[in-house]
């Protein structure tokens, strides 16, 4: 015999912490559907599921896609919050479907699921990510150094200098922040918090030498100055990055550079 399957009777384990007995409950998923091959309008559709409240919203979406309606379309990959594929608006807030447990979002009422805001909706929960990545690319998100001959050893960096930009290295480019930003919704021209976070990651890296250029880019009309400190980005970030704080640090760097 291989991987064991035990009779439930003879497995009187000690009671589970957090796993008492997992009663399935009935949950309604209210999903914003849009399929240009069917209709020009988006509409709500309700699905009822039997689901363990400790499961993720992503599990619910999979249940729907796999067992009820295969046309439901969304992006996902890692299923544990590190790839950034499945940012969506769940009960009105941006979150990762794979990091949101049903029990944490009041399963008593229908759970609304919509695509993130401010980007073109392509189908159901899938949006066009190109403008988002374009803004990212526009801030020179890479290390720039002037050295001509390649060092044979690593560049040195003190632990404190490394710590300085630690927070913003966590970004997984999920767009939860940018698409939660009220400025971005109306004006997709704004670089958006994610691009600024990724610029911050290099501006404050002691090894980098293009901070000045990046600051100049963000001094743009559509740069950091458009941020109205609404903190939606910070609240939405699944990686717990203090996004607004990073933006403020960039603003202050711009000011101290000028005056």
């Amino acid at each position, binding site marked *: *015999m*291989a*991987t*064991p*399957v*035990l009779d439930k009777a003879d*497995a009187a*384990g*000690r009671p*589970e*912490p*957090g*796993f008492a007995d997992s009663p399935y409950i009935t949950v309604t998923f209210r999903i914003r559907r849009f*399929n*240009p*091959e069917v209709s020009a309008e988006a509409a709500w559709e309700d699905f009822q599921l039997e689901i363990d409240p*400790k499961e*993720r919203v992503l599990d619910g979406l999979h249940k729907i*896609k*796999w*067992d009820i309606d*295969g*046309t439901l*379309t969304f*992006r996902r*990959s*890692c*299923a*544990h919050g*590190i*790839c*950034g*594929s499945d940012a969506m608006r769940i009960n009105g807030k941006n979150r990762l479907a794979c*990091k949101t*447990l049903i*029990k944490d979002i009041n399963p008593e009422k229908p759970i609304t699921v919509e695509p993130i805001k401010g980007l073109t909706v*392509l189908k159901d929960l899938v949006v066009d*990510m190109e403008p988002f*990545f374009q803004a990212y690319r526009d801030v020179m*998100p*890479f*290390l720039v150094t002037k050295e001509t001959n*390649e060092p*044979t*050893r*690593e*560049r*040195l960096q*003190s*632990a404190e200098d*490394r710590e300085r*930009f*630690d927070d913003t*290295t*966590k*970004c*997984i*480019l999920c767009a939860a922040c940018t698409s939660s930003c009220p400025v971005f919704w109306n004006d997709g021209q704004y670089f958006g918090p994610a691009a600024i976070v990724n610029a911050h990651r290099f501006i404050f*890296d002691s*090894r980098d030498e293009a901070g000045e250029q990046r600051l100049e880019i963000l001094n743009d009309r559509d740069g950091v100055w458009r941020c109205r400190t609404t903190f939606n980005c910070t609240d939405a970030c699944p990686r717990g990055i203090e996004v607004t704080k990073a933006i403020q640090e960039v603003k202050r760097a711009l000011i101290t550079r000028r005056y």
Partner: protein
Amino acid sequence: MKIHKYDTVIVGAGGAGMRAAIEATKRSRTAVLTKLYPTRSHTGAAQGGMAAALANVEEDNWEWHTFDTVKGGDYLVDQDAAEILAKEAIDAVLDLEKMGLPFNRTPNGTIDQRRFGGHSRNHGEAPVRRSCYAADRTGHMILQTLYQNCVKEGVEFFNEFYVLDQLVTEVDGVKKSAGVVAYELATGEIHIFQAKAVIYASGGTGKFFKVTSNAHTLTGDGQAAVYRRGLPLEDMEFFQFHPTGIWRMGILLTEGARGEGGILRNKDGERFMEKYAPVMKDLASRDVVSRSIYTEIREGRGCGPEGDHVYLDLTHLPPEQLDAKLPDITEFARTYLGIEPYTDPIPIQPTAHYAMGGIPTNVEGEVLSDNTTVVPGLYAAGEVACVSVHGANRLGTNSLLDINVFGRRAGIAAAEYAHKADFVELPENPEAFVVEQIERLRTSTGNERVATLRRELQETMDANVMVFRTEQTIKTAVEKIAELRERYRNVAIQDKGKRFNTDLLEAIELGNLLDLAEVMAVSALARKESRGGHYREDYPNRDDVNFMRHTMAYREVGADGSETVRLDYKPVVQTRYQPMERKY
């Protein structure tokens, strides 16, 4: 249908694909096709670190690293390749640092290193600090850094393009790679990429298991495409099962958790690893710990109402230590289990983790069509490939190394080949296979559902070819897979549209998984010994006389159209180290 022409085409934008792209773009006109946005690749999930004998914190050298790799792989490792891996590791890490990777630092500013399972000083004397890391998100930082440099180099990406077929043309009796066929998710359009050189870097195939640390998208598309064209797959029976996956979900809890002092306990609270590995205890090698856990479970000492898991106990560790060293995994426990690791043990079970086998290549990343012959213009690197540096069992932190070292090598080799080679003529109707496949699925009136078949496949794989295998269980799996392959012909999908038809793609991915599962099971059945990740209860010992050799699996199509797996074998390259018993 559109036809594109590039010197080099890279399939996959994970660590291996992007490392290759950085080199190839500098040298040739390169396109990277990827089914996910590059930063969504599963390389980002890796936590532990990347091995290199930098000797920043204590004495170390690449020779010791080579030994550990060979021993870790239960001597099935090709030692010439392992030597390259360990030697080039140092430059690979320095390269990444130059590209901007924010490694953790020592007090004097150099890259910090830490211990990891199986890495030792002086051929097994004592653990050594060899793993270079960036907090507990080394893979994430590698993926981001490589993507950043791709942006810098202006690498041309085709995002959400699924490569579904490899084009092979015979020129003067030699099979050459002509290009690939890709499916554009956004529009449903089929694209032919004619290329002088093609590099596969499409990652692993862990999704044929149910409990796995792998992403939903790791479905072995690359392996399947090449295999379908009559090229071999090497050592597919070797799959690594990581001991500590979150119960039922398979989300990985890094070895570091035990490195920090975490203890595995059964339902009686007993520290059972003391029985199985008196010296290394909870830090014994991955295959040993995984087997021990399942032995506990089988003997009725598993936890929970169904007795199907054990506990990873961190409660005796100070909360500050957990916060500082293991922030991500404590967060996983809180998010996914609602468990506070300060006070409660975490339910875990072994999880399918890494495919040691894959597309056979030489050390330049060139794909082989048999034991020695190279397929001109075809390359592979990363988890999709089998060089073989991991042999029967991969050491922790050696894979992030693998993707950088061999990703780079394949990128350079492919671009240089593309320089001197000419385009190979496309076969007639290059898109035929893909069109037929898609049309069949779209118009099928069958009554089988993708999700059902996939579930059954995953269940049978988990039950029969996971940590413990016997003749009988593997046979059960082979039969079940055959049945599922039969039923797969009758599979139907609901989404008949063109735009973002993920329903269709899941069906295609299932087809790939079924092909690869078959290869795996058939290869495992024939290997009547236990070695590394492949553990046969009916043959519990390693058998160097009969099985010190790589498995090479080929697809045979009979005159009646029936498909079978034909097995062949390839000798292992041994240079310095003679096989010894593997003890930790």
